């Protein structure tokens, strides 16, 4: 039943943009139609996910499919349902948001195209998540990748958008080719075209190759450091509600597929988990460190996706370690932590992107150093962004805390293990995660502060306007979910249990983690906050207002405020060994130095310092091979002669 619903949802989503193509360029009918279709598809998709939790049907549907190696094999188990629900939920909200953010009336050139590919993107993700056959999976995977590329390049008249699109396209293809190899190897090992890895020797060369290929192919999609290079520019270039979908859902498909492939390996070698845990940790720490150095709010959010993907990989790595070492509680906590974080990150990251979109909509800029003081001009957006910011930092009482707590619990369980020496690895991961939390806090304090607090730093910011209801509504829904999961995590425990069943875990999560106590603590926290606030408010009622004191400085201006760059400078300096920031600092001479400007930026070190030089060198090497084809027909004939002689000698 849920499979049928899910397939219908995908089909509807894929077609959602089509009617719009035939409607007028100026009318609103097309966009409303697309939005309603997505909404219907989304409701079907979310119901499919819920149904799968309530009444799981492990068999799925399998029909013949007339392509070589293909079968129309579709199943929605707990693991798929987690992701399925998320994609359709966020897709609906994004589509509604798009009505206000990217109205046809204001984007006559590309509005219809964008909606077409938005629907296809949703459908592609949905399809790959329910696909049980590898050809079907690859179809969904690539539809997703191409649709994402086409949405990212919606504004292809801008050079930076074209660059981002090209980079994304190349990296996603590299990943897809890894998957070709992965599935071909799996086919060779099992003779089947699905995710079933039973019978593959995990420790052998084929098993190793499969794991490494999965790590590369899915890691590229997920944006695991150092494979994250495409992610910041692509997220920054896409229309914001697409960024929300990409960051919230698209990159998670990598996590989904990794969890799916790993699920089949009953006895993975210990180093698999260790590697995933280390990569996840590195990704989390460096992701957030890069985020701190950004000026562009969307790039900042994109780097946080790298960070959060790292946290999810830490969870998955922990689960793999648990399997390898025979600790089912680690498997449960790691997997549940990772999967809950998938949901949570989808919610708060979408919320933050939509919030950033409202800011861009209201001010026309994404440069944080040109913003400020928006809280008074966009109170709703500010509050919702704040909710997202607190959630993404993993702070109680919101949802981010719950999933991070699960991962911490797992890491501590691992650290307390008495068999072997692997516990040391997990015990270094926990403090790293703490560092990540603290850096994320610094980063979002900076972002929230620079955008919404203080005084506006530019005229754009001064004249900002609040977003329309179509944009605020989806954000409210997301924020409500963040709060709900944060306050009552026990609600989602059954879903996580059902997903963990895919990994053969049968212990309920409530038995392994104090979900009820989290609710109690959250309620107590709210009570304490309420009480303190009430007391303070009653005392300060009727207080006076005056300009900021600022130690008695006589003429404060908005330009004197700490900017996001200055806020980040110290942290960026601490991580300079990895971030390689570029600074253009003036030399100030004499007691009354002349006016000077400071400029600092943190470009992507992996992309700028490793990948691009490598690509350039390769292309140059290729170019130097061009002499082969110099237009000289004698040489061409000579090649034929040479080939002939060589082959005749060889044979």
């Amino acid at each position: 039943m849920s499979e049928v619903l899910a397939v219908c949802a995908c089909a509807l989503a894929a077609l959602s943009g089509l009617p719009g193509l035939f409607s007028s360029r100026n009318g609103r009918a097309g966009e409303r139609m697309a939005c309603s279709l997505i909404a219907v598809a989304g409701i079907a998709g979310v119901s499919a996910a819920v149904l799968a939790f309530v009444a799981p049907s492990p068999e799925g549907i399998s029909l013949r499919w007339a392509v070589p190696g293909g079968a129309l094999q579709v199943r929605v188990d707990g693991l798929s349902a987690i992701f399925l629900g998320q994609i359709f939920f966020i897709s609906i909200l994004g589509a509604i948001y798009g009505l206000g953010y990217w109205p046809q009336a204001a984007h006559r050139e590309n509005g219809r195209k964008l909606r077409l590919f938005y629907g296809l993107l949703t459908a592609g993700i949905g399809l790959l998540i329910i696909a049980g056959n590898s050809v079907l999976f690859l179809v969904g995977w690539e539809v997703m990748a191409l649709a994402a590329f086409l949405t990212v390049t919606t504004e292809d008249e801008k050079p930076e958008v074209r660059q981002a699109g090209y980079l994304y396209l190349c990296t996603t293809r590299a990943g897809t080719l890894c998957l070709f190899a992965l599935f071909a190897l799996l086919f060779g090992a099992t003779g089947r075209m699905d995710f079933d890895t039973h019978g593959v020797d995990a420790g052998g060369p084929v098993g190793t190759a499969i794991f490494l290929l999965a790590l590369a192919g899915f890691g590229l999609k997920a944006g695991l450091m150092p494979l994250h290079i495409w992610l910041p520019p692509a997220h920054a270039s896409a229309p914001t509600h697409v960024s929300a979908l990409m960051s919230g859902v698209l990159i998670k498909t990598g996590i989904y597929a990794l969890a799916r492939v790993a699920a089949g390996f009953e006895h993975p070698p210990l180093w698999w988990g260790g590697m995933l845990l280390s990569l996840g940790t590195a990704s989390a720490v460096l992701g957030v460190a890069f985020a701190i150095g950004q000026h562009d709010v969307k790039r900042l959010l994109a780097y946080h996706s790298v960070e959060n993907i790292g946290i999810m990989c830490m969870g998955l790595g922990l689960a793999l370690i648990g399997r390898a070492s025979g600790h089912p509680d680690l498997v449960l906590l790691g997997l549940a932590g990772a999967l809950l974080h998938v949901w949570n990150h989808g919610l708060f990251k979408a919320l933050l992107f939509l919030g950033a979109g409202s800011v861009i909509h209201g001010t026309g800029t994404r440069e944080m150093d040109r913003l400020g003081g928006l809280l008074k001009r966009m109170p709703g957006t500010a509050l919702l962004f704040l909710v997202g910011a607190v959630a993404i930092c993993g702070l109680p009482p919101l949802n981010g805390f719950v999933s991070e707590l699960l991962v911490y619990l797992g890491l501590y369980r691992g650290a307390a293990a008495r068999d072997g020496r692997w516990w040391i690895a997990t015990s270094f991961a926990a403090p790293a995660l703490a560092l990540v939390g603290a850096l994320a806090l610094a980063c979002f304090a900076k972002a929230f502060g620079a955008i919404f607090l203080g005084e506006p730093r530019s005229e754009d910011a001064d004249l900002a306007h609040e977003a329309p209801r179509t944009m605020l509504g989806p954000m409210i829904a997301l924020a409500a979910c963040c709060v709900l999961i944060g306050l009552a995590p026990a609600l989602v425990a059954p879903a996580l249990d059902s997903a963990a069943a895919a990994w053969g875990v049968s212990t309920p999560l409530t038995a392994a983690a104090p979900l009820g106590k989290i609710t109690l603590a959250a309620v107590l926290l709210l009570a304490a906050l309420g009480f303190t606030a009430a007391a303070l408010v009653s005392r300060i009622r009727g207080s006076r207002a005056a300009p900021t004191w600022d130690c008695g400085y006589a003429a404060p201006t908005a330009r004197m405020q700490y900017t996001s760059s200055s806020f980040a400078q110290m942290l960026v300096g601490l991580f300079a060994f990895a971030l390689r920031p570029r600074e253009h600092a003036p030399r100030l001479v004499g007691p009354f130095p002349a006016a000077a400007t400071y400029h600092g930026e943190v470009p992507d070190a992996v992309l700028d310092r490793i990948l691009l030089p490598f690509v350039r060198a390769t292309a140059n090497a290729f170019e130097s091979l061009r002499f082969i084809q110099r237009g000289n027909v004698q040489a061409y004939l000579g090649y034929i002669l040479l080939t002939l002689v060589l082959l005749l000698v060889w044979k």
Partner: protein
Amino acid sequence: MNLHTLLLDVVHVAVLLLVPPFLLGVINKTKAAFAGRVGPPYLQPYYDLVKLWRKGSVFSTSTSWVFKAGPVVGFATAVLAGLLLPVAGHAPLSFEGDAILFAYLFALGRFFTVAAALDTGSAFEGMGSAREATFSSLAEPALFFGLLVLGRLARSLSLEVMLTGGHWPPRSAASLVLVMAALFIVLLAENSRIPFDDPNTHLELTMIHEVMVLDHGGPALGTILYGASLKLFIFAALVVGIALPDLGNPWMSLGALLTGVLAVAVAIGVVESLMARLRLVHVPSLLIAACLLSGFGIVLLAR
């Protein structure tokens, strides 16, 4: 829940709310003693708090509700964190993983304190908030390494078990000493004491925490100071809790803990009297050293 536990909980809350300002008094007395002065009375911090609470307040036109939320969240999170800590051999709120909540509650408080500072639009307060965010992110791993050592020894991630377990194997002593040293450094950093910060200075350019509250006055400032003293008490209790053995009797535990906390206050006073404030650029080094200390604690456990 029996009556005895309820009584203990009430005592816990009472101690938590009443004792902390006293620590400030002890510190100031200690410093005065070193300087050869009489110093303010032990109860002076209480008088200050009452005075501040009675004052009127002025708010900057740049600020919004976030500015007022800073003190509220800072105080409320400290109170809740206090509930997680065993004061009389027992914590009112305790569960597996509450140590994480403990750390993250302070983080929540920090987020709003920093945001409140940025809300003023003042360059000084921005500077302070940037420093606060930077240094605390370095202190965090040290704290977690410490918690990890305790967690591995106690096989639990609940502060109550970790701090009242008490029967550590002898060979873990070295690790515990390292952890205590690291946590003491974290305590100094988190509570803006010398050598990280000077609560008495008036040179705003060099300050961290104090500079963030420049624009707060009256009741709001009072709430902040009260919250800060709570935080000091809680960190001191954490450090002392590691050292204290399990005494069996809650009242004896309480007495021992309070004695220990006062001793920590004296130690802080001694440190502040003997040391100068570090140059700002050296602060990260000290914090990283703290991380290394507690990280080494883990490595020692692996013997």
